[in-house]
């Protein structure tokens, strides 16, 4: 396993927006981390990148094993050796992800110079190579452009180029297509899928879009209100969702014109961290909830096939 997150909990001050999260990513594999807005997806990405201190958060329990090393225990200086070099981040909004006053090429070059010890010329040559491989036309001219001169899809390709430039083993992509329009979304998703298979990278693909998950993911982890609901191989999960929440997510794969992040078909929204209900956090919105669901948190249990589930009344009880 390239990345193995075990029982991860995150605190920001006294609040505890993420608890007991476990999942794993293999080389050449894409794990989709899905959930509605506010379920803790970005916090998971920040935790894996070791960037929680930036927003005043910390890992309060659990391990983040990357290639055998527990990142949760590493000091900041050591973490910096991983960031960009071995684990790269693709952020949600390409419009604001690049420094607006620095030419695009230099923002990519810096990775080669910083992490691979390349000279300015070598780094630029690699940048142009990389942009060309990401199917950016006229890479040379694009290098000289400022971010505001490029389209959203182009900017996201640049962000992906930055992620690849350090030759990482793992890419954490936090909603890489949410800010883009639909046709560009599909291009970027396919590009990411291709990169993972061709280069043997691992990818943690964060999204609230089950459609995206269905297209490219090998494994799926469904997050609800800071807890794992269900985590299984994609094919099995789409065929027979076990958690009622997963089933609801699949039942409403977003189509054109739907507000991003919303979940049609299930009334209500993810409660805020301060108002997580007792018991199963999904029970107020769950069509199958019984009396026990309000009282007792369902344990995350290993399934006999593969994967994990936390539900008192799964859709196919036999799997439990």
């Amino acid at each position, binding site marked *: 396993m390239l990345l193995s997150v075990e029982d991860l909990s995150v605190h920001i001050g006294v609040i505890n927006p993420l608890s007991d999260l476990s999942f794993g990513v293999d080389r050449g594999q894409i794990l989709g981390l899905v959930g509605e807005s506010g379920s803790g997806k970005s916090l998971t990405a920040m935790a894996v990148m070791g960037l929680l201190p930036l927003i005043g958060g910390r890992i309060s329990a659990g391990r983040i094993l990357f290639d055998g090393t527990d990142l949760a225990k590493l000091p900041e200086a050591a973490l910096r050796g991983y960031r*960009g070099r071995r684990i790269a981040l693709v952020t949600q909004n390409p419009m604001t992800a690049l420094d607006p006053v620095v030419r695009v090429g230099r923002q990519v070059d810096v990775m080669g110079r910083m992490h691979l010890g390349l000279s300015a010329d070598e780094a630029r040559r690699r940048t142009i190579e990389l942009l060309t491989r990401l199917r950016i036309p006229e890479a040379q001219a694009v290098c000289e452009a400022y971010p505001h001169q490029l389209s959203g899809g182009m900017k996201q390709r640049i962000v992906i180029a930055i992620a690849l430039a350090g030759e990482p083993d793992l890419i954490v992509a936090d909603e890489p297509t949410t800010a883009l329009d639909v046709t560009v979304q599909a291009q970027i998703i396919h590009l990411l899928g291709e990169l993972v298979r061709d280069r043997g990278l691992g990818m943690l693909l964060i999204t609230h879009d089950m459609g995206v998950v269905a297209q490219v993911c090998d494994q799926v982890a469904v997050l609800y209100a800071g807890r794992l609901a269900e985590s299984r191989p994609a094919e099995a999960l789409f065929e027979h969702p076990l958690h009622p929440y997963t089933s609801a997510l699949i039942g409403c794969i977003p189509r054109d014109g739907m507000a991003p992040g919303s979940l049609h078909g299930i009334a209500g929204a993810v409660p805020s961290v301060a108002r997580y209900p007792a018991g199963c956090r999904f029970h107020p919105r769950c069509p199958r909830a019984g009396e026990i669901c309000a009282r007792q948190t369902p344990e995350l249990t290993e399934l006999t096939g593969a994967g994990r589930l936390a539900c008192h009344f799964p859709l196919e009880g036999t799997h439990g």
Partner: protein
Amino acid sequence: MITYLTRRLLLLIPVFVAVSVVIFLILHLIPGDPLDNLLRVGSSPEKRAEMSARYGLDRPLVVQYGIWLGNLLQGDLGTSIASRRPVASLIGQALPHSLLLGALALAFSTLAGVALGVAAAIWRDRWADRLIMGGVLLGSTLPSFWMGLLFILAFSVQLGWFPVSGARGWESLVLPVLTIGLGGTALVARVARVAMIDAAERDFVLLLHAKGMPPGRIRLNHVLRHAMIPVVTILSLRIGWILGGAVTVEYVFARPGLGTTLIKALSQHDYPVVQACLLMLAMAVMLGTLLGDVVQALMDPRVRREAA
């Protein structure tokens, strides 16, 4: 960038005309006849008429303005009524002193202000921040002439470190520069602090951290660079204010310069000199603002596009 600059320079022409009209009118509409200073008490009306004709004061205002502007464009600022010397040479003597003082004060406010603001932002909400911002608050509330007098008392009269007045050597510049510069320093420090904090919270900074860039480098190469954009804006808006400070401070320290020349000319109703001084100040403000905008366009490619 070239088109941007040309456009900005062309825009200055109407502004210049408007300013020149205002300066000309103010001087001719305020009470006090300059001839009173030139003529002995009880001079004959003929003598007065002769003087009036000599300085062109008997012509209609529009004609006087036309003549003045025409001469001005040829570099002829007229003749001082009080000293009978060409105004251009008076200004030529005073201007370098004021420019030096203004430039040093500007440089001092910028450097000290940015340094303090950045330090306060780095140690945000800690004692260093509180100390700096407390000092800044104090500095921005005290009027500069008052501070100038205080400095003279403390450093010149009591300690004897710097000369009380005059313009001999660099020592005589220290107190005036401090006096003008401290207000600007306070302002710049406040703007720089907020700008640093804002810039550090921008989205792209997160990606820089994710790239594995050391925090010091992020701060210096990216955050500081963005924070300087509002600092330059505020500085270019405040150039007139700094020059205004120079006028009073020159007077307090009895330094030669545009301010001293202006105040003396005002008391003598020497309106060609007053006009020239005001014109110089106005032009300094216009060019200062232009300079600020150009620096900003150099720093931020998005400004270049909007302005093009």
